[in-house]
């Protein structure tokens, strides 16, 4: 004896394929309730009808309808086909809506937006420095680099900008229209700086909640970047640490595979001061150790472990210090 069911009905068959008993769900058939049933079945659960028949015939073996011989299971009527169509669209729409609340997708856009803004900031900031430098011949462009865009953006004229920067303006001066162009450009730089800060504070906010341990270990911005590079938190958690170590160094890694250049020692992890501010001969060692710790932290985040705090991070920092102490000189 076999028990089979789908969202419409449940049936008990004897070995010859005769329907011994059946229970049809026909009360309140509408798209939303069908959607609930389909989701239930998709998760591997039984319907009420199947449970009822199962209690009535405990000896019946639960058999998926695909395992039944041809022709045993009833076809769908047109109304039923319409119902399952509408219900399926409801489920799909709910699935798409749920994806928008996925922090991985949100971080992906935030990190991408941050990168794009930073890239354009670098370009237009470099121009405003050189451009303003033409009209401020005596200023030290390196020492005052951070002040120049703001001073030009808020000043009403070149002379006022020069005096707020405590320097002299060019004796030939600047035409009104050129000054407007320059100061608007400088305003753009200041605005983009602000926009970058908004993006970064949003990244921090999402990352600290979504990746608490990884954020504690390497900072929320780098944690978000690592997770995005790995295409999501769960995948970062599944990657081997050797891959985590070179995430972000794909170009040189594949050049290594193809042309045999030396293997990259670090990718995005280089951004962390433990790596970038270590002497060059131990960066690989630090990056390898750190990638292992990032893997552990990411697994805690992805699979709901107790998040790391300052105490655990201190232990890792001690390891960095230890590596630095053990290798004071490059190996010959």
């Amino acid at each position, binding site marked *: 004896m076999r028990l089979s069911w*789908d*969202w419409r009905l449940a049936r008990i068959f004897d070995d010859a394929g005769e329907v011994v008993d059946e229970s049809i769900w026909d009360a309140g058939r509408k798209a939303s309730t069908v959607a609930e*049933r*389909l989701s239930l*079945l*998709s*998760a*591997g659960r039984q319907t009420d009808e199947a449970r009822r028949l199962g209690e009535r015939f405990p000896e019946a073996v639960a058999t*998926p*309808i*695909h*395992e*039944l011989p*041809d022709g045993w*299971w009833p*076809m*769908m009527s*047109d109304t039923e*086909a*319409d119902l*399952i*169509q509408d219900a*399926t*669209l409801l*489920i*799909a*729409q709910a*699935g*798409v809506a749920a*994806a928008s609340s996925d922090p991985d997708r949100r971080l992906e856009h935030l990190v991408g937006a941050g990168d794009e803004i930073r890239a354009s900031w670098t370009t237009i900031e470099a121009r405003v420095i050189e451009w303003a430098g033409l009209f401020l011949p005596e200023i030290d462009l390196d020492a005052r680099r951070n002040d120049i865009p703001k001073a030009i953006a808020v000043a009403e004229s070149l002379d006022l900008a020069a005096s707020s920067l405590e320097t002299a303006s060019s004796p030939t001066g600047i035409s009104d229209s050129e000054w407007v162009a320059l100061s608007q450009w400088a305003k753009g730089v200041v605005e983009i700086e602000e926009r970058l800060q908004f993006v970064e504070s949003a990244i921090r906010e999402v990352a600290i909640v979504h990746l608490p341990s990884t954020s504690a270990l390497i900072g929320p911005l780098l944690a978000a970047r690592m997770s995005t590079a790995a295409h999501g938190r769960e995948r970062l958690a599944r990657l081997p640490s050797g891959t985590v170590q070179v995430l972000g160094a794909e170009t040189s890694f594949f050049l290594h595979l193809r042309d045999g250049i030396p293997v990259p020692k670090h990718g995005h992890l280089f951004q962390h001061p433990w790596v970038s501010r270590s002497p060059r001969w131990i960066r690989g060692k630090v990056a390898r150790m750190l990638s292992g710790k990032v893997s552990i932290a990411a697994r805690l985040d992805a699979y709901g472990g107790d998040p790391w705090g300052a105490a655990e991070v201190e232990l890792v920092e001690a390891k960095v210090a230890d590596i630095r102490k053990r290798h004071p000189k490059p190996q010959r």
Partner: protein
Amino acid sequence: MSERSRNKSRGKTTKLSSTVLVKGRGLWSKNAVPGVKVRGENLRKMEGDEWRNWSPRHSKLAAGILRTKQESSLLPFQGSQALYLGAGHGTTISHIHDHMCGVENEMGGSIVAVDVSPRCIRDLISLAKKRPGILPLLADARKPESLRPWLNGRVDWLFQDVSQAGQVDFFLDACEHFLAAEGIALLSLKSASERAVSGGSEEHYSNAAKAMEEVGLEVLEVIRLKGWEEQHALIIGCAPHDWK
């Protein structure tokens, strides 16, 4: 104009079904939503109906249909139930819909279109609203159990196009679960996403064909899609009459 070149420019017409035809080098499906393009393809009036060009550049199934040496076409039966794993944005799906559902699903076909990406499902939802018969499922093609409630029994036609490592394993898994006896199973294999082997693409193709034969499927043909889709092959399998 010589007889020969005139023939070429007009093209010989072969009907694969009432809704799909090959004209010259082009493949066309009868538009189930007349006047509407799905992906900017050409529309053309022939014999009083509107047909949509089914481009082998955008659809590996179209490429396979144009290149196969099989007598019968690679298309599912009209009005039947088909399972499509890795539905993407729905270009191929829309043509299969033309073929097996028709206007407002007059043929009563059903295409279960599975994809794991919400971005793709979004496009499929808008497609399905215009084309009843398409059932978009946001699900993982590697977990066939979760697709069960949507399939009323086994399917005669199963297509997988997912381009990820290990795709052969879960193609076979899906076949064991859902393919009917004498049903046809099409595997669009991307050799570039498999682990590199010494024999390159050809070795991937033959490994996949061997794996299909090991589980009892009959491999009818391995169609290389080179020229349209590099490092891709469409492998056509057929379930024997005593399958499962």
